[in-house]
């Protein structure tokens, strides 16, 4: 596995400098980095990202991106396919480390700690920054073991009673307990799609994360299962920070407090969701959310 991490100095390129012309690494192609408008920064953030750039080989997928993720907020990331939102999401718990050609530059901190520092172990990091994927991916194990897996490998419990408590609490927080409490030993893969997705959320919750990343968590679900996941997101926000990538504009509008719009690797606009969906600042945002392009 090849991974390159360049630790940013104190002199990050600022957002307001970003209209400058940047040269793609190793390429003669010139790309204009667009200025981010809106409110990318917050007071007392849970995570801070400054000057983040991501390359797949020579191709730059994300340009000089800076944004904060607040405590107890749902941040929705929207944009056309290939705009870099999922790539950026995966930077937040170093999932991009698994992609050989991927290079991440800049600085991403969780609670003040640089998550790309060589001393950081990605296993506990991914417990703190959990992830829920587009397609529900329960382990081929029982419902109980799916949720128990994380606490066991992270050594979060020493007794069966403690583990049982975590299982019950996690499944309750995921809104699944009442539906599965009498069949915890049944295979997780036997649940419906929506239930499987909530099981995956319970699995992420079980290791006491601070941030939950969701990559189009409802795109494979029917409207009823989607509604349950959205209700769950609203409840989880009271305890966690949530970053959700979605192609469903109305979902972003329903579940998030802030919305970030990506376009061709640039973070175009970040703002309060009600503001972005009623009166966006940037014409590109307006054009995308009103369906003029994308």
């Amino acid at each position, binding site marked *: 596995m090849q991974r390159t991490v360049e630790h940013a100095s104190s002199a990050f390129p600022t957002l307001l400098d970003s209209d400058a012309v940047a040269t793609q690494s190793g390429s003669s192609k010139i790309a204009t980095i667009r200025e981010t408008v809106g409110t990318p920064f917050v007071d007392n953030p849970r995570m801070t990202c400054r000057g983040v750039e991501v390359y797949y080989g020579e191709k730059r997928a994300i340009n000089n991106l800076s944004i904060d993720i607040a405590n107890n907020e749902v941040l929705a990331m929207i944009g056309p396919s290939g705009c870099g939102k999922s790539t950026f999401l995966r930077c937040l718990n170093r999932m991009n480390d698994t992609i050989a050609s991927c290079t991440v530059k800049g600085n991403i901190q969780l609670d003040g700690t640089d998550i790309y520092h060589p001393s950081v172990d990605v296993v506990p990091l991914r417990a703190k920054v959990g992830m829920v994927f587009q397609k529900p991916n329960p382990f081929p194990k029982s419902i109980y073991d799916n949720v128990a897996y994380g606490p066991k490998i992270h050594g979060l419990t020493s007794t069966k009673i403690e583990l049982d408590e975590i299982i019950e609490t996690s499944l309750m927080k995921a809104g699944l307990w009442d539906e599965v409490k009498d069949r915890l030993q049944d295979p997780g893969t036997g649940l419906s799609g929506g239930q499987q997705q909530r099981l995956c959320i319970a699995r992420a919750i079980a290791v006491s994360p601070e941030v939950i990343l969701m990559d189009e968590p409802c795109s494979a679900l029917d409207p009823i299962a989607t509604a349950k996941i959205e209700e769950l997101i609203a409840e989880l926000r009271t305890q966690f920070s949530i970053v959700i990538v979605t192609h469903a*504009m*109305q979902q972003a*509008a329903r579940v998030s407090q802030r919305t970030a719009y990506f376009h061709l690797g640039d973070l175009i606009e970040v703002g309060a969701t009600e503001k*972005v*969906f*009623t*009166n*966006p600042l940037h014409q590109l*945002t*307006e054009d995308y*959310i*009103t*369906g003029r392009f994308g």
Partner: protein
Amino acid sequence: MDHHFTFPHELARLNKKLLYLSAMVEEKIRLATQLIASHDHDAAQSLINSDYEVDELEVEIEEDCLKILALHQPVAGDLRFIVTVIKINNEMERIADMAVNIAMRVDNISKFNHAAATSYDFAPMSAKVICMLQKSIDSLVNRDSVTAKTIFLDDDFVDNYRNKCYEDIKIRIKKDPEHPGYHINTYLLARHLERIADRAVNIAEEVVYLVEGTITRFN
């Protein structure tokens, strides 16, 4: 079976209908203000009887807006446009009702056959009200919030004229206490015109919201 058009086509059709309604209402106000001077009974009846045209179009536009909201879930500028159409549509219908009220009031005044009375000069007030309505519609057509913001200045003139009318009518009632109904009806014409001006201001406020995304109230 109802046809489904593409979203931009639906918006364009809605815009066209709203502008048609606006032109229709503007014309009715013009006719109503002419009635104040002419006291033409037939023209008054014609205005009263044709009010259904505005009512029907208003319902049609509202249905279109609800359909677009349900089927297309508009956001940003499109959402502001639909909200603006819903509100202006309502204002236009109420303005048309004011035209009918003026026609009925003029008809009532004519029935008094009041030989001694001198008619009140509403021409300056009527001209200003028509100007305000035109300006609000123009600002809507041109998506011109700058023009829209100037309308409230005209509203002061209309309010002052109504107040002046009120004081004048009080004096007339004192001088001619035998015909209070005639004088009160005359004052109510000023009141109707003033309400039309208020609704023109409301339309201008909606235009500012449509263009700038900020909710504005001209007080």
